[in-house]
C-alpha cells in the first residue's frame, strides 16, 4: 500500500486518545526503578572529583569492611575480566584519509580520570545506604593534571589520551572548497558570524536506572535499563564489550521516563551491572540520582563556529562556508562522532538553493562529560548557525527576514544539495506564508509600538528549518561510517480471533507508539484500534530492532509494520480466496473485509484469521497455517520535515528579562497519523529549544573543569510559566520514499526554535545597539549585552 492510499484509511489523521495513558495516570506505569527483584543489592559508583588526574592508588580495604558491602570493583578488575571499553558506533574518516582517533573508553577508569564524574569504582552492598556509605570510604589518591575544558582551549592543552596527543579527534569536511572560494571572490556582499551553540544537559525526568540480573540455572543475563533502543544496547554490550553470545542476554527497557537522546547509548554503568551480576551472583540495582545525571549523562551541543555567507547584490545566496569546533567531551560516546558531521554539516544547505556549501569540522577531546546526540542532534546546531547568519545578512542588506528567506527557497523537488542530501519533497513557501498569517506578522508594528509605550523592546525572529530524519538508509549510513545497519523490524501477530499483537523494534518513551502504531495497524486491517496491542522494549519478545532516535519511529518502524501488513494481507487473501472459492487475484481487501471482485461474496478479517489457526478447510498443500509475519524495512532515503517558526519577544531593558510573547510554528511532517500526539511532540520540542535559547546552559569552570550547573538549582529548566500558548500550523507534502508518507515530528520543535528566539532577541536589541548575542538569553546576559552596547 502506498502513502496516498494509506492517508485515506479510517483513523489516520484522528486524534485518538492514548492507550497507554490509563496506566501512567493511575500510578501503574512500570519504570525500571519500580522493579524489585529478589535479594536485590544496590550499586553506587565512586566518581572522580577531578576533571583530569592520574590515579595513584585505590585503597578499598576500609570500604570493603563496612557493613553490608559485597564487592568493590575497579579498573584493574575490569582489565582482569578482559572487558573491553565502550565502543563508538560511527567511524569518521579524517580529511587526511586516516581514521579518527579512537582512544579507549574504559567502563572503570584505568589509571586515569578524564572528567568530573568519571567512573572510578563500583561499590555493591546489601542496601543503598550501605553502598553510599562505603563509597565514601574508598580512598583514591590522585595526581591532578591540568584540565582542558573549553573546546577553544583544546588545541595545545594537556593531552587527555596518548592516542590523541593534541586532543584532536578528527578534521572532517564536506563540499567543494574551491567552488565556494570562487563564489566568495565574486560576491557583492559577505556576511560573517561567530557563534557558540551552548552545551545542554538532556535531563529526561526519569534519571537513568538499571538492574543487572544473572541466572546460573540458564546462564542467562537480564539487564533492565531505562534505554531507547534495547536491541542496540544488547548488541553493543554483547558483541563489542563483553564478548557474550546475544541469545544469553536479554535487555528490557520497560516504561521509560523520557530519553531525548541521553538514553540511546551504552553506558559504563550498564556494563558494570551486567558483569557484576554474574560475578557476584546477585541482582544489582543502580539508580542515577539527578546530581549524578548532570555529571555523567551524555550532554548535548557545545559547538563553536565561524560562518560566512556570500550574497549577490539582491540578497541571493551564492555560497556558505563554515568552520566548526565540536566538543566531544572526554570519551567517544556511542553516536558522538556522527553528530557534528553527518547529522550537522549535511543540513547546512537548509531550505535554500545556495549553490555551494563547504563545511569543515574539527572535533576535540576535553575534560568534560561525553557529548552526544540530544533532541535534534546536529540539526539544531546546523539550523541555529544557518538561520542566524541568514537573519544577520537580511539586517546588513536592509532586507526583511522573511523576504531574504523566501527569495532563496528551494522550489523544485527532488533537490540535490551541495552537501550530500537529496530532499524528496517540501513546500517552503507554504510554511512561510501560513506562519506569517498565523503569527499575524502584519500586526507586529502595532505590537512593537505598544511595547515601546511600556518601555519594552519587542523583536521578531524567523527560522526556516529543515532536518533529516528516519535515520537512515543503511548503505548510505555505512558509507558515512556507521558501524551498524539502521533498518527497523516489526512483527504482526494476528491471533485466531482476529485481534493483533504487534512487536516493534521502535521504542516509546513518551511518543505514544502504543496508540499511533495501533492506529496504523488497525487502519490497515480494518479492525478496531482496541483489538491491537503494541509490544516494545524487550529483546526477549521483539525479534529485533534499532530503536528510537532521530525521529525515526513512524517512518522506519511504522514502515516495517506496513511491510509486515503487506505480507499479512497477501497471505490472508489466499486464505480468503480458498474460502470463497475464487482466484487469489480476484480478492479485494478493504474495511476489514475480503470480497471477490464483481460479486457480493465477502468474509470478514476475523474469519480468515480463525481459518488460519483452525485450518479445517484450508489450502494446506499450498499454504502454511498461521497468520504471523515479520518484516525488516531499510529506508530508501532520509525524510525531510521542514517548517517556518516565528517568535516575538519582549525585553525589559532595565532588567534584561526576556519574555517570549508569541510563538508560531508551521511544520510539514508529511502524513500525520495522530494530530494530538504530533502537536504534543512539537510543544515539547519547542520548550526544549526555547529553553536552550532563553535559559538552559551547562557551565564548567574553564580552569578546573568543575561542573558549575550540577543540579536543578543551578541549571535552569523550563517551567510552565516561561511560555505563551504556542500557535501551530501544518503543511502536508507527503514523504515520497516510505509507504506512510510520514516524515517524523519528534525533534522539529527543538531544531527550529532556538534561532527564531535569538533572531527576535537581536531584532529587539538592535534598538539599543546590540549586534551579537550568544545563547542563552538569560536576564543577566541580556542586561550585560545592553550595558556593553552603551
Amino acid at each position: 500500500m502506498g502513502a496516498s492510499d494509506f492517508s485515506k484509511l479510517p483513523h489516520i489523521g484522528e486524534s485518538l486518545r492514548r492507550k497507554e495513558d490509563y496506566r501512567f495516570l493511575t500510578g501503574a506505569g512500570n519504570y525500571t526503578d519500580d522493579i524489585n527483584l529478589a535479594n536485590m543489592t544496590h550499586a553506587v559508583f565512586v566518581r572522580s572529583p577531578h576533571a583530569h588526574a592520574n590515579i595513584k592508588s585505590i585503597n578499598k580495604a576500609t570500604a570493603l569492611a563496612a557493613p553490608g558491602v559485597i564487592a568493590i570493583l575497579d579498573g584493574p578488575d575490569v582489565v582482569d575480566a578482559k572487558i573491553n571499553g565502550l565502543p563508538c558506533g560511527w567511524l569518521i574518516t579524517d580529511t587526511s584519509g586516516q581514521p579518527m582517533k579512537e582512544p579507549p573508553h574504559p567502563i572503570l577508569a584505568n589509571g586515569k580520570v578524564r572528567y568530573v564524574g568519571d567512573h572510578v569504582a563500583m561499590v555493591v552492598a546489601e542496601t543503598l545506604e550501605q553502598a553510599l556509605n562505603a563509597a565514601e570510604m574508598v580512598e583514591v589518591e590522585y595526581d591532578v593534571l591540568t584540565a582542558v575544558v573549553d573546546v577553544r582551549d583544546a588545541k595545545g592543552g594537556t593531552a587527555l589520551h596518548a592516542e590523541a596527543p593534541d586532543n584532536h579527534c578528527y578534521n572532517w569536511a564536506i563540499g567543494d572548497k574551491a567552488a565556494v572560494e570562487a563564489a566568495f571572490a565574486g560576491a557583492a556582499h559577505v556576511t560573517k558570524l561567530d557563534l557558540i551553540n551552548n552545551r545542554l544537559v538532556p535531563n529526561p525526568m526519569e534519571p537513568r536506572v538499571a538492574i543487572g540480573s544473572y541466572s546460573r540455572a540458564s546462564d542467562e543475563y537480564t539487564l533492565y535499563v531505562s534505554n531507547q533502543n534495547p536491541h542496540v544496547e544488547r548488541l553493543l554490550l554483547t558483541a563489542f564489550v563483553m564478548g557474550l553470545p546475544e541469545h544469553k542476554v536479554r535487555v528490557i527497557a520497560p516504561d521509560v521516563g523520557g530519553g531525548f537522546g541521553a538514553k540511546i547509548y551504552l553506558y559504563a554503568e550498564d556494563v558494570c551491572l551486567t558483569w557484576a551480576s554474574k560475578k557476584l551472583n546477585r541482582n544489582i540495582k543502580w539508580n542515577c540520582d539527578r546530581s549524578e545525571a548532570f555529571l555523567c549523562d551524555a550532554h548535548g551541543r557545545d559547538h563553536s563556529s565561524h560562518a560566512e555567507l556570500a550574497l549577490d547584490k539582491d540578497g541571493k545566496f551564492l555560497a556558505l562556508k563554515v568552520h566548526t569546533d565540536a566538543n566531544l567531551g572526554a570519551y567517544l560516546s556511542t553516536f558522538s562522532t556522527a553528530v557534528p558531521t553527518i547529522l550537522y554539516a549535511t543540513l547546512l544547505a537548509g531550505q535554500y538553493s545556495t549553490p555551494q556549501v563547504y563545511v569543515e569540522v574539527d572535533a576535540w577531546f576535553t575534560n568534560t562529560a561525553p557529548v552526544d546526540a540530544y533532541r535534534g542532534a546536529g540539526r539544531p546546531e546546523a539550523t541555529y548557525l544557518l538561520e542566524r547568519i541568514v537573519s544577520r545578512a537580511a539586517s546588513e542588506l536592509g532586507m526583511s527576514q522573511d523576504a531574504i528567506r523566501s527569495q532563496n527557497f528551494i522550489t523544485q523537488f527532488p533537490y540535490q544539495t551541495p552537501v550530500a542530501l537529496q530532499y524528496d519533497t517540501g513546500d517552503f513557501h507554504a510554511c512561510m506564508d501560513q506562519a506569517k498569517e498565523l503569527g499575524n506578522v502584519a500586526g507586529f508594528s502595532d505590537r512593537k509600538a505598544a511595547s515601546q509605550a511600556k518601555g519594552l523592546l519587542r523583536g521578531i525572529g524567523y527560522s526556516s528549518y529543515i532536518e533529516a530524519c528516519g535515520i537512515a538508509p543503511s548503505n548510505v549510513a555505512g558509507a558515512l561510517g556507521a558501524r551498524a545497519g539502521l533498518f527497523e523490524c516489526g512483527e504482526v501477530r494476528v491471533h485466531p480471533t482476529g485481534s493483533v499483537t504487534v512487536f516493534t523494534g521502535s521504542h516509546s518513551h513518551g511518543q505514544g507508539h502504543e496508540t499511533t502504531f495501533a492506529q496504523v495497524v488497525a487502519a490497515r486491517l480494518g479492525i478496531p484500534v482496541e483489538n491491537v496491542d503494541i509490544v516494545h522494549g524487550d529483546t526477549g519478545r521483539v525479534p529485533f530492532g534499532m530503536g528510537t532516535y532521530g525521529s525515526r519511529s513512524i517512518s522506519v518502524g511504522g514502515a516495517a509494520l506496513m511491510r509486515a501488513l503487506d505480507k499479512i494481507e497477501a497471505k490472508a487473501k489466499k486464505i480468503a480466496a480458498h474460502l470463497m472459492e475464487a482466484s487469489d487475484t480476484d480478492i479485494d481487501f478493504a474495511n476489514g473485509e475480503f470480497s471477490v471482485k464483481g460479486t457480493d461474496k465477502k468474509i470478514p478479517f476475523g474469519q480468515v484469521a480463525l481459518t488460519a489457526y483452525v485450518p479445517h478447510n484450508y489450502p494446506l498443500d499450498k499454504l502454511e497455517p498461521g497468520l504471523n509475519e515479520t518484516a525488516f524495512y531499510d529506508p530508501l532515503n532520509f525524510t525531510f520535515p521542514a517548517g517556518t517558526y516565528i517568535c516575538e519577544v519582549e525585553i525589559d531593558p532595565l532588567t534584561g528579562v526576556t519574555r517570549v510573547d508569541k510563538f508560531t510554528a508551521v511544520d510539514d511532517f508529511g502524513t500525520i497519523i495522530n494530530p494530538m500526539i504530533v502537536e504534543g511532540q512539537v510543544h515539547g520540542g519547542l520548550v526544549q529549544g526555547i529553553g536552550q535559547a532563553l535559559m538552559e546552559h551547562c557551565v564548567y569552570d574553564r580552569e578546573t573543569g568543575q561542573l558549575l550547573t550540577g543540579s536543578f538549582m543551578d541549571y535552569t529548566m523550563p517551567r510552565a510559566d516561561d511560555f505563551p500558548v504556542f500557535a501551530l500550523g501544518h503543511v502536508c507534502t507527503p514523504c515520497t520514499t516510505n509507504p506512510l508518507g510520514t516524515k517524523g515530528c519528534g525533534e522539529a520543535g527543538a531544531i527550529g526554535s532556538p534561532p527564531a528566539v535569538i533572531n527576535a532577541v537581536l531584532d529587539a536589541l538592535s534598538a539599543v545597539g546590540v549586534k551579537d548575542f550568544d545563547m542563552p538569553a538569560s536576564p543577566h546576559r541580556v542586561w550585560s549585552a545592553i550595558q556593553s552596547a552603551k
Partner: protein
Amino acid sequence: MQVQMKVNGKAVTVNAAPNTLLVQALREHLHLTGTHVGCDTAQCGACTVHVNGRAVKSCNMLTAQAQDAEVTTIEGLAHADGTMHPMQAAFKECHGLQCGFCTTGMVMSAVDLCNRHPHANEGEIRELLEGNLCRCTGYQNIVKAVQLGAVGMKA
C-alpha cells in the same frame, strides 16, 4: 521507628529509620511506586502526594513527620472501580502527558491547585505549576488539562 499513618484510606504502620523520607516509605515500604523520584533537590515535583489534603513533595518530608497524617498518593486518586478522577481523565483527554514520569506528581499538584484555586486562569495555572517540571509536553496541554480538570472537579 514505627510510624502510623493513613495511606489512601488505609491505616498502615511503617517501620522506618529516622532518616527515611516519606517518598521512600511510600515506594520501598508500601510498594506504591506511582510516586516517582526525579531529582535530589526538591525541584521537580515528581514525588508530589497529598498530606492532609495538601500537595507535598514527599522527597522533602521525613516519614516520621507523617505520623497520624492522611496521605493520598496517585494510586488512591481514582475511584475504587478504577474510574479515573476528573483530573486524571482531563490529562488523558488533553494529552497532558507523554512519558508519564512527571505525570503522577503533576496530577496530584493539579488536584490541590484546583481545590485551592477553582477559578484559576491560564496564567495563574502556569504560575501555580511552577513546582513541577515536565520535560516532554511543553506544558501547554498540561495547562489545558488542569483547566478541564477544574471543570470536572466542580461537576
